[in-house]
Every structure is written in structure tokens, then in C-alpha cells.
């Protein structure tokens, strides 16, 4: 395995950054820096999945969904305050009935993305881990839904963690994403230097 990137690597910095986000360590692999790529990639992936083993898959909080895996909707209805007509915001897992006079109805993450991310800020560093985090987010939503009492044999509900264990799970997964950001920046910087040579 090579310790230094080979000079014949012609990958563009943008492609290296994208590859590093899609699969941790892949940016270095594109630069033919195999030892660095494998070390960084395996360490970051192990850190993320070790975090999920500690905190459980439900330590991932997914924007746009409530803690029970239900999609959140938001809308406005007209209300009155001191005799003036004011819009009142509603958020619920159930869409409004047609008689409510609701407007700007839609998925909460689509309608209010900043508020959703602000309420679940750890999702941002976790997203830097790449598509595997999105897959785990989908899995977290699927196993968060309560089992249907009519079909108790169907479904597989995961337990939600609390306290230190939850904090450690979030810490591990968020640090894995932030370390991947470090690897993305470093590998694309190395690609720029290789281009300049």
C-alpha cells in the first residue's frame, strides 16, 4: 500500500470531495492513497455504527418526523387576536380536514426546514457521514412506529435510549460525521495540490 498519493491521479477536487462524502475514505482512495483511505474510512464507519450500537438506532432524530416515526405536517389557519385576524401555526401527524380552512399545508421539513433542523441539530453533523446516515435515518423511522395492536406479530419496534447512553450514541455518530468532514476537506485539498503539481 502506498503512503503518499501517486502523481498520476487526475481526480478533480470536487469529485474527490463527493466520493469522500458518499463513502468515508473514498476520497483518498481516488487519489490512490490506499493506506490513508482504508484507515480513515474504516475508523469513521466503525465509530458511526459503534454509536448506533451504544445508543440504539433511535438515537438518530430525523427531521420531519415525530419520535414515533410519524410524518409531521404543518399548516396555518386564520385566528383572531385582540380583534385582528392572525395566522395560527399548527403541527400534527394528522393532515387537517378540508373544513379547517388550512393553508400552506405541507410536510413540516419542507415548510419549515430551518426550525426542524434547529430542533434536531445533531442531524447536521450526522448527515456529513453520507448516504449511509440517510439509510439509517430511514431505518430509525421504520422501527420507531408503534406495533399495530391488530397485527402484533408484524413490526419490530426499537427502544429509545435516554440519559448518558443516548448522549454517547449521538456523540459518536455526530463525531463520525465531523471526522468525515475533516477527511472530505483534507482529501480535496490533497487533490488540489496534486492538480497543481
Amino acid at each position, binding site marked *: 500500500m502506498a503512503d503518499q498519493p501517486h502523481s498520476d491521479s487526475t481526480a478533480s477536487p470536487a469529485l474527490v470531495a463527493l466520493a469522500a462524502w458518499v463513502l468515508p475514505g473514498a476520497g483518498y482512495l481516488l487519489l490512490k492513497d490506499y493506506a490513508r483511505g482504508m484507515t480513515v474510512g474504516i475508523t469513521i464507519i466503525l465509530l458511526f455504527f459503534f454509536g448506533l*450500537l451504544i445508543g440504539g438506532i433511535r438515537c438518530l432524530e430525523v427531521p420531519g418526523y415525530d419520535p414515533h416515526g410519524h410524518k409531521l405536517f404543518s399548516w396555518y389557519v386564520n385566528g383572531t387576536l385582540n380583534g385582528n385576524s392572525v395566522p395560527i401555526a399548527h403541527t400534527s401527524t394528522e393532515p387537517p380536514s378540508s373544513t379547517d380552512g388550512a393553508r400552506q399545508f405541507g410536510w413540516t421539513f419542507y415548510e419549515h426546514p430551518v426550525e426542524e433542523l434547529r430542533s434536531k441539530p445533531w442531524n447536521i453533523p450526522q448527515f456529513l457521514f453520507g448516504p449511509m446516515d440517510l439509510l439509517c435515518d430511514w431505518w430509525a423511522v421504520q422501527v420507531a412506529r408503534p406495533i399495530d395492536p391488530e397485527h402484533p406479530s408484524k413490526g419490530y419496534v426499537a427502544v429509545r435510549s435516554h440519559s448518558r447512553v*443516548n448522549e*454517547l450514541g449521538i456523540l459518536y455518530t455526530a463525531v463520525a460525521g465531523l471526522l468525515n468532514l475533516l477527511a472530505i476537506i483534507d482529501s480535496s485539498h490533497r487533490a488540489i495540490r496534486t492538480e497543481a503539481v
Partner: protein
Amino acid sequence: MNLPMFPMIIAEAYRPFMDPLPAWENGRWPWLLIPLCVAVSIVYKSARCKSMKAVFREAMGLTLTIILGMIAAAIVLGFLVRGLER
């Protein structure tokens, strides 16, 4: 409950990824910070070192520094809290 059987019962009930790790007792969870320190050190030193041959040694040194730093911070904060409690 038969106490020696208790850890075995927990181990049988634990479903990987579905359940949180049963490590919430005060004596156990701080040990989980060590793998985090090791991983941070390895990735940081992999990005910093020119040669990958030096990464392992450098990462172990950085891990030790982080752990000693955390212990020192814990001691200082412990004394601070006890002082403020009086």
C-alpha cells in the same frame, strides 16, 4: 432475583441496534469515551501525518493526551463543584 444471573438476562435481552447498550451505570459509561478518543486521534493523525507509518504511534500519543486532559478537567471541575457546594 438471583444476582449472578442478572447480567446474563440483560445480555440475552439486548438486541443490537434495536436496544441501547445496557451501560448506564455510573461506573461503566465513562469507559465508552476511550474508543471515541482513539478514533478521533487516528483520523486526525491520518490527515496530518505525511507518512502513514507514523500514524499509529502519533495517534496513541494523542489518545493518551486527550484522556489525561479529560481526567485533569474532571479533577479540576470536581474540586470546583465541591468548593461551590460549601
